[in-house]
């Protein structure tokens, strides 16, 4: 057990595997497939202040080795999550990470304040890939100052550690990572989805009712690995890595890049057992590649390496 265990701010993980936000609802559906207590942690679907219906359908599309989604923050609102969903999750021996979203800094604060009254969450994942309605829809996560500001304000409201979830749709992710680290983030989760689109040749319209959506799945793994690798070299708070993970080998690649734990999203849809299967396979994979433990592998892809910028 201690081979897989890892301790992060606010999180005593029995293993480094957790489902990613939005890909696991509030856990009830997958609890019918296996005992959720097997998981390292659970990141639940985004919470906003009020209930939201989200975007019109179709909300998902398949791309080569990936998928697009534009669910649109559908959730029952933070109060219902606290009163109805969290108590159900409290039956399992697994730390819960609440994903906090909003359209204004005030909404982020309100959601955090509400969650802070619950004893059922171990940490907050601050989802800054949301458009700021007060600033003409620019995403909080694409502007270092805005990202730092929302981090600082949420951190001030929270009585649990705050992990900031970085958007990959930026020129310089290291700059955003440093800004939120300086603003007090306890950790980072990365990466969120990349903005993509698909057009239906028959209807001549975007497949998603929302036009654009977020790309996830194996297609984006090399981008996630690159960003984690670069951020790991410049910030010191821990990283929970995600983006296209579906095997224990993928997990090891994220650990080598510098993640201390990982989340699995899209792969749950293909294989509802992917999380427990990866947990079972991980000790063998660690052993095969000569690592005594998860802790032993973190960041091991960096030694001797230096980052060149020239290419193509």
């Amino acid at each position, binding site marked *: 057990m201690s081979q897989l265990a890892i301790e992060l701010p606010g999180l005593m993980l029995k293993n480094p595997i957790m489902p990613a936000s939005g890909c696991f609802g509030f856990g009830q*559906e997958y609890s019918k497939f296996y005992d959720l207590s097997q998981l390292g942690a659970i990141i639940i679907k985004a919470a906003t202040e009020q*209930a939201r219906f989200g975007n019109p359908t179709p909300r998902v599309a398949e791309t080569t080795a990936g*998928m697009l989604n534009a669910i649109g923050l559908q959730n029952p609102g933070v109060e219902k999550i606290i009163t109805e969903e969290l108590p159900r999750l409290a039956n399992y021996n697994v730390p819960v990470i609440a994903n906090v979203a909003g359209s204004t800094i005030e909404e982020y604060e309100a959601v955090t304040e509400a969650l802070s009254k619950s004893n059922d969450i171990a940490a907050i994942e601050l989802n800054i890939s949301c458009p700021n309605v007060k600033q003409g829809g620019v995403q909080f996560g694409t502007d270092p100052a805005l990202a730092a500001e929302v981090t600082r304000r949420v951190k001030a409201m929270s009585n649990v550690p705050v992990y900031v979830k970085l958007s990959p749709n930026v020129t310089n992710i290291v700059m955003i990572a440093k800004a939120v680290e300086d603003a007090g983030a306890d950790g980072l989760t990365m990466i969120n989805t990349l903005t993509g689109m698909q057009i239906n040749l028959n209807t001549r319209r975007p497949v998603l009712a929302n036009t654009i959506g977020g790309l996830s799945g194996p297609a984006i793994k090399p981008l996630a690995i690159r960003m984690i690798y670069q951020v790991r070299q410049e910030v010191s708070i821990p990283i929970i890595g995600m983006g296209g993970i579906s095997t224990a080998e993928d997990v090891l690649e994220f650990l080598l890049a510098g993640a201390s734990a990982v989340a699995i999203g899209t792969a749950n849809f293909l294989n509802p057992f992917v999380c427990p299967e990866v947990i079972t396979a991980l000790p063998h994979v660690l052993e095969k590649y000569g690592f005594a433990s998860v802790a032993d592998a973190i960041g091991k892809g960096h030694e001797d390496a230096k980052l060149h910028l020239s290419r193509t």
Partner: protein
Amino acid sequence: MIKRVLATITSSREIALDTIEMNLAIPEFASFSPIAPGQFVHIQIGSGVAHQLRRPISIADVDYEKQQITIIFKVIGTGTEELRKYRVQDQLDLLVPCGNGYPIEKIDSKKALLIGGGIGVPPLYYLAKKLVDKGVEVTSILGFQTKDHVFYEQAFQALGDCHVVTNDGSYGYQGFVTNVIETVQPTFDTFFSCGPTSMLKAVTNSLVDREGYISLEERMGCGVGACYACVIPSPNEKGFKKICQDGPVFLASEVSL
């Protein structure tokens, strides 16, 4: 309870233009029974690398003796194109059974009207069989694009009156299933419909005062209720239903198309 199984293909044949009927032997079959008409399987395509999403396909028939199910699918895109290439003895990774079917146990009906369009026809076949088993009289109206797309007419005929309509009139009536309802004026106390959303809209509009069940389609992610891909607005307390989990079968009055 939904399980993940490796089913073995026991037969595969093209029963109409680009329309494949497959029989799938299901391991540990007993643990799934009974399967309700209207439930679906969520099928992995290939190794699941190029195709990250499963494909939802209705259960068209169940053979409890042979422990197998029948699916009928139309080749419309890359996933069903791959699926068509599978051969007898190949294995398919399924989530089964998904969703809630037609609640035939609860329904007190003497005469049922079944209205199916295209790839909405398959689940109605198993439904028709189940209704007839219960002593319900079944009339079916089946719509297809053209003559070449028609399938299972005899099978439905064997279970009751069956009217086929094609969009281009190349077989049976010409037009839409709603035209046939008007022409034939079938007597029924409950209707059951499955097909494209546009057809379901037309059907529910023309039968707005009648008790009926419809089965909906939407692009799906998880297929089990976790990802919120397949929601439909509903006048219930939550404001929505999930097609994969609460449906795909709904009381026509339950959802806003």
